[in-house]
């Protein structure tokens, strides 16, 4: 896949300040999984997994279904807690964080496999609600959402609700939502899983651009080896273990 060539970002792309929060010193990993295990009853979703993600790095996590890819990503997103081991952000154990809401809001940007946009809100509002709880006012949130929609070539779709958009458009809105608060890391769970090859290429082109020009740190889960090959590093999971 020629990622860069597929990137068809709008003219406004270079004018938008994404301001990714890549504040972590080069020596300190942005994200770390240290001997992480996750058990669902008798089922071991993750077993003593260790992974370190450096600032500005694009890591792809691959593996067959049920291998623990999404579980690992959800630990990084702090939407789940590990049964054992620890998950660290910029060296700090997330278990010691009092306000994981803030971590989820500011430090990481989640792109879900099924976009998880709210169907009753239009594209712009779906982005704006991610900025609730920040210090940005109404107008600033609106401006930011407009900028991000422009960056992802979705200006025309700003007033469209998810059911009225294509799969690729929905996923790009989800990426825009993930970028809303200029996170340090983008966490993408099968971002191309529900898309056709052209749509998938477009999404990967977006990530490629964010990674190259904005220095975005990306952790992307995919079962597609070709998609994974766009990343700096590919991690293989199988049976809950990193191999």
């Amino acid at each position, binding site marked *: 896949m020629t990622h860069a060539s597929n990137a068809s970002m709008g003219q*406004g792309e*270079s*004018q*938008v*300040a*994404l*301001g*990714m929060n890549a504040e972590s010193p080069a020596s300190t990993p942005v994200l770390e999984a240290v001997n992480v295990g996750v058990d669902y009853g008798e089922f071991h979703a993750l077993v003593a997994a260790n992974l370190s993600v450096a600032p500005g790095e694009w890591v792809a996590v691959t593996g067959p279904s049920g291998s623990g890819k999404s579980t690992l990503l*959800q630990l990084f*997103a702090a*939407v*789940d807690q590990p049964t054992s081991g620890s998950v660290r952000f910029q060296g700090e154990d997330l278990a010691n964080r009092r*306000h994981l*809401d*803030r*971590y*989820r*809001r*500011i430090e990481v940007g*989640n792109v*879900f496999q099924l976009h*998880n946009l*709210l169907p*009753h*809100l*239009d594209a*712009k*509002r779906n982005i*704006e*609600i*991610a900025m*609730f*709880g920040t210090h940005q006012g*109404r*107008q*600033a*949130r*609106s*401006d930011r*959402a*407009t*900028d991000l929609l*422009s960056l992802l070539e979705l*200006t025309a779709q*700003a*007033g469209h609700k998810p059911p009225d958009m294509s799969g690729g458009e929905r996923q790009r809105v989800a990426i825009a*939502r993930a970028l809303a*608060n200029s996170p340090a890391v983008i966490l993408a769970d099968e971002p191309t899983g529900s898309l056709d090859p052209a749509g998938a290429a477009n999404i990967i082109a977006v990530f490629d651009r964010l990674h190259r*020009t*904005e*220095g975005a740190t990306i952790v992307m889960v995919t079962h597609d080896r070709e998609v994974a090959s766009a990343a700096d590093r590919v991690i293989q999971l199988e049976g809950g273990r990193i191999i």
Partner: protein
Amino acid sequence: MQENARLPTPQMGPNGESGGLSFVGLIVHNLGTRRVRTALTALAVAIAVMAVVTLGVLTDSLKSSAAEVLSAGNADFTVAQKSVSDLLNSVVTDTQVTKIASTPGVASAVGVLVATIKLDPAHPLFLEIGITPESLSPFGVHVVAGSAYDATAPDEVMLGWQAADAFGKKVGSSIVMDGIRFRVVGIYSTGQVFADSASMMSLATLQARERKPATVTLTVVRVTKGASIERVRAAIEEANPNLATVRSATEYGRVDRNLQFLGAAQTGSQIIALVIGVIIVMNTMLLSFVERIREFGVLRAIGWSRSRLLGLVLGEAIGISFLGAGFGVGFAFVLTWGLERFSPLRGILQAQFTAGEVWTALYAAIAIGLLAALYPSARAAMLRPGASLRRE
């Protein structure tokens, strides 16, 4: 990275709106998106509010209507038997009336006998007032047509103008009450609906018919100029331990326990209406919560705090409450309007909607909304985002 380069600020949003989405705007939007659910939930709140407001209005109306009997005659206060179950069962003897009249400070004391009969199915509680002709004027009765009845005439009656109007009677007509034919000799007005919807006849006639010789139901007292009403009341109560004086509608319970029971029944019924409302609305909100678990999970996953999610659900509940309050007051108004015109209650109910009723509706609706939303909103706030996102 070109950190300072930003696109021009749009003046209008893509939907033609200026500015962005506010938190309150999101709440309103959510309610508008789920119109049917919002309307049905608001309807449940409205029905409970309607019950609370209607019960309050009706009870207040009954109280004030009943208390009008006591305030007849431009009296300073009224004397009746203490703590009877119903004012109509009060017995004040002629001797006591005389004793009251001789109390220092009393200018006049008029004994009045009050009874009810079933005139016809539409008027099951038609009021008869027995009073001597010479006491009519002090009692505040104005004869507007014909003349007053004779003190010794057993078949003469006067009708209040509302009663005459309702029955199509005029001076010279006859009316059968309790199997006895009376001749309408006059039409009167007192300015009070209760009395103007009743009949008046000679005290002796009514005493004979009711087999209550030498007794009246209540005594209307006026004090001499400059006398202390409270001192006169105290003197009368001290001299007549089984009697109570009543000066205002709020004191009515001293002589009529029914009204106290009515007040208690009203409070109880209102609480039951509120509880039923809370249960219905909570059920609807819990169903809504289950349907929206994934939505809440997404919001938590993108960084919404528990308190913000709590605020969203409670905010939606308050929005529904406001809608329910508005509809509830409207429903209550229509219901009481209909009841006022329901023939057995005509003349008894005089529902008055005041600002107090609107506040009651608002308080009741918000109480229902918040209590009903408390559990669902707490569950929403306590959701674990990971588990919520895995939910199909």
